[in-house]
């Protein structure tokens, strides 16, 4: 690669671009204004011949920075995947000709649009460098699994089978976790009719036989430091001895603890031994060892069992859990079968408000319970009144709409799960935010989830000792899009620590997390980013001389990638970084940049459009669109030929979090009439691929109004929106609305 920059511009005239746009004019703009070394036109650039033409120039050392002016950067990126050079793309197809009408009147403004995109791409390319991996990378295939329950054992075995050795750290003296406490499990195989044996014993045997899995019992993780590919983990045993191992990635399968039923005095828990939780019933069944379970208070035969669903769950009462734990309805059906299968004469009644039986076999299992004669009553239990011979369960029958009662020898409470997620790094921050929202008290139901928590991972990160939590203490991950990812790269949570689940789901979860951990070590070994910019070689660096040690980058990085050195300068851990650019957006002195994405690559694009003067009646609107959702939505608008204003110039950004407010100020100063920021949904049900990026951007932009007032500009000129990938109609509409607004309030006074 040449040291000196040589910029080649390649303009495609295929896909109708040549018919609608003047290619020779664009060539001229590229060389004269964009300062490209040369410009070439091809009528089918993504064809083999077109690609070969570019590759030949690269091989000949003719080009170090290429501009490909053709379709969207989201299209044909296999064809235009050139190594060792910096590539920028001008979107003439989805971004220009497909969103503009093919009419004579529109021709001029459409051409202006294309010309600007050529200028922008040239100036972007000029500030880009081909990213090279740093020397931080290392390949370490060893995985750490924290927790030896069903999830941890499954994850370790799955990894070992794939050739990645695993070390399980288990706090107690034996493997098996909560599942080890069960007499039987909810069936996971057709016909889903009867309780099944748990796989705990089999898994333990498998682990013992597998030389790739090491087990440390009575042990905890005393310290975790480093980054994916090079974690140093200190394992402490109960006896006080410690040892250190090096691992490439971590799977946290720390499971759950059962809800403390002492908080349910209304159900007579603690007042009579005949009221038990589901977990305690498992103990009774195991202890009976095949014989009939007797009434705990007096050893009498049991003839009536009542199951109280959602005990202390799905409730907004203080000390209760507000969520559904998901496993307990199926568990009650299973437990009712313990009795029915032993003696069909025993009456078993499940009192539920909504019977929820997730999982493939759930409905069949429910039906099987009904077939066996388990009675299901839709109602809400208000109270259990202990008696000397049997107890009275008072409830409201929701179908018959009446208060009624039923007798029971044994009452089983379906209490929920609390995640063992450790200490939330952002607990203080969240509490402060909740307090700010006056009137609305912090979710009382959550209080129980955060009492006397111990750290699980003891991360030596500046941003706290454990992975961040989302709601109710469960670890933060995107349920649908990227379930196993946490906000700490290379650390994957699986099982009930992530969300409430049963054995079958936990095993699936464990397998998924093992796969993600394998990805992480492999990517780290090659110096490449993990999800969602997986494979990206660029990473952030900062100019130390300029840094004011303000710490915004370390605080705002959603993934805790940045530590601090002794001199209190930020230290970027490349393999912990997801390449979102949030740090770059946060830095007030703009010293953070990537090789191929920086304040300059975007800033230069903003400044180098052709700005018509005030009397031309041609406003300019800048759109900074998140490349994950908003930009594809606009591309799809193009594919659907949904028109939008020709006055807009769209620049994709890695994440709205990477938007530095200087871009907005620069845009306004250089005469743009409006600026639109399009990012993903923020908040608890975020869709932001970088979790916090969009939220941080919204916060930053909420402060832009002051700047606007200083400049004497209307606040409507800068808008920030949450845009989903499906907003194919809405995204263009937002642009057109801005165009209308400008028509109303007039052009910006800042044109030169």
């Amino acid at each position, binding site marked *: 690669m040449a040291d000196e920059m040589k910029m080649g511009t390649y303009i495609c005239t295929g896909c109708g671009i040549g018919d609608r746009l003047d290619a020779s004019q664009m060539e001229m703009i590229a060389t004269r204004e964009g300062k490209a070394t040369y410009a070439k036109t091809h009528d089918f650039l993504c064809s083999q011949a077109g690609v070969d033409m570019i590759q030949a120039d690269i091989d000949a050392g003719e080009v170090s920075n290429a501009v490909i002016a053709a379709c969207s950067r989201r299209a044909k990126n296999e064809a235009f995947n050139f190594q060792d050079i910096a590539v920028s793309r001008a979107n003439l197809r989805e971004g220009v000709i497909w969103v503009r009408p093919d009419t004579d009147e529109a021709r001029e403004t459409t051409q202006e649009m294309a010309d600007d995109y050529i200028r922008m791409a040239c100036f972007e390319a000029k500030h880009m460098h081909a990213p090279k991996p740093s020397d931080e990378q290392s390949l370490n295939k060893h995985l750490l699994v924290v927790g030896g329950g069903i999830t941890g054992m499954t994850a370790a075995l799955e990894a070992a089978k794939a050739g990645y050795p695993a070390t399980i750290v288990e706090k107690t003296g034996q493997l098996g976790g909560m599942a080890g406490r069960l007499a039987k499990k909810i069936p996971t195989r057709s016909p889903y009719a009867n309780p099944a044996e748990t796989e705990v014993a089999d898994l333990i045997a498998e682990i013992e036989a597998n030389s790739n899995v090491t087990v440390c019992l009575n042990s905890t993780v005393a310290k975790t430091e480093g980054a994916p590919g090079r974690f140093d983990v200190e394992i402490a045993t109960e006896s006080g001895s410690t040892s250190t191992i090096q691992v490439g990635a971590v799977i946290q399968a720390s499971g759950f603890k059962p809800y403390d039923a002492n908080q349910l005095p209304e159900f007579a828990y603690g007042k009579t031994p005949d009221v038990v939780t589901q977990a305690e019933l498992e103990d009774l069944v195991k202890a009976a060892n095949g014989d009939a379970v007797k009434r705990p208070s007096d050893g009498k035969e049991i003839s009536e069992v009542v199951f109280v669903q959602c005990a202390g769950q799905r409730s907004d009462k203080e000390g209760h859990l507000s969520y559904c734990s998901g496993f307990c309805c199926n568990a009650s059906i299973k437990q009712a079968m313990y009795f029915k299968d032993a003696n069909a004469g025993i009456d078993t009644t499940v009192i539920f408000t909504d019977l929820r039986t997730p999982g493939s076999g759930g409905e069949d299992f429910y039906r099987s319970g009904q077939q066996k*004669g388990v*009675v299901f009553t839709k109602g809400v239990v208000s109270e259990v009144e202990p008696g000397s011979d049997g107890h009275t369960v008072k409830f409201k*029958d929701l179908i018959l709409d009446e208060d009624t009662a039923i007798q029971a020898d044994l009452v089983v409470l379906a209490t929920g799960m609390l995640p063992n997620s450790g200490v939330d790094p952002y607990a203080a921050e969240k509490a402060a935010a909740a307090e700010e929202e006056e009137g609305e008290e912090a979710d009382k139901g959550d209080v129980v989830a955060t009492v006397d928590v111990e750290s699980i991972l003891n991360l030596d990160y500046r941003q706290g000792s454990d992975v961040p939590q989302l709601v109710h203490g469960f670890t933060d991950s995107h349920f649908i899009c990227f379930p196993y990812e946490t906000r700490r790269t290379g650390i994957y949570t699986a099982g009930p620590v992530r969300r409430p689940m049963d054995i079958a789901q936990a095993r699936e979860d464990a397998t998924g997390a093992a796969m993600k951990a394998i990805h992480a070590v492999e990517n780290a070994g090659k110096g490449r980013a993990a999800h969602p910019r997986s494979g990206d070689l660029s990473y952030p660096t900062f100019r130390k001389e300029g840094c004011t040690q303000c710490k915004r980058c370390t605080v705002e990085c959603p993934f805790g990638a940045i530590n601090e050195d002794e001199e209190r300068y930020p230290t970027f851990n490349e393999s912990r970084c997801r390449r979102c650019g949030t740090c770059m957006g946060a830095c007030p002195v703009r010293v953070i940049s990537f090789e191929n994405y920086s304040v300059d690559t975007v800033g230069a694009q903003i400044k180098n459009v052709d700005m018509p003067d005030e009397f031309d009646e041609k406003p300019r609107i800048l759109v900074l669109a998140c490349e994950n959702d908003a930009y594809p939505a606009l591309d799809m608008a193009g594919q659907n030929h949904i028109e939008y204003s020709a006055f807009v110039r769209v620049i994709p950004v890695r994440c709205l979090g990477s938007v530095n407010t200087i871009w907005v100020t620069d845009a306004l100063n250089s005469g743009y009439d409006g600026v639109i920021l399009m990012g993903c949904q923020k908040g608890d049900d975020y869709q932001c691929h970088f979790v916090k990026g969009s939220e941080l951007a919204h916060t930053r932009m909420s402060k832009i109004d002051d700047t606007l007032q200083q400049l004497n500009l209307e606040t409507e000129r800068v808008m920030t929106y949450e845009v989903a990938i499906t907003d194919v109609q809405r995204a263009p509409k937002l642009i057109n609305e801005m165009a209308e607004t400008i028509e109303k309030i007039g052009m910006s006074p800042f044109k030169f």
Partner: protein
Amino acid sequence: MSDMNVAMVERYRNNFLKEVEHNVEEGDWVKMCMQCGVCSGSCPLGPYWDHPPQELFMMIRAGKREEVLTSTSMWMCTSCYNCIVRCPRELPITHIMHGLAHYAKRLGLAPKEQPTFKFSQHFWNNLVKKGRVNELKLGLSLYFMNGLVEGIKTSLNMAGIGLGMLKTKRMSPMEMIGGHSVKDTKGFHAMLKKAEEIEAARVEKYGKGS
């Protein structure tokens, strides 16, 4: 209280669900209802029932014997089969409704003034005589079902239609005297008797221990 009713109360004590399973046509399906309410929402007459099917099934499970068996609800079923088609648990709801009505009637608990109940009795009485429905007699007995005055009024109202039917030979006044019958009336009556025996045996079947 009929003897049979007394016997059944004695036999099943609190377990009305079991009683229904044993004695009501398709009654063993009742436990499979998952209380979704689709049947009640689908029934064209649902809003007019005291207890739509979903509720009846819940009442059976809750042991509300008296309330269920004396209810007019299952007599409201028009056999449109909407509920059967839609029930996600595939309960033969229509059949259970008729089964419940039938069982209530056998126990002597059915509501005597319910029009469907009354009509069914007239229809039955009319049918068993000759094995064929005598439309003229059935019609007239229906007109007079609710007393003489209303009967005369209805008859006068319907006179035009009646005459028209006579004229076009859709109805014969001769039916009033005797009327036609199936070929083998004796055989028909023997069949009815046999059916009654089978049913009695079924009731007895669970009589021993339950």
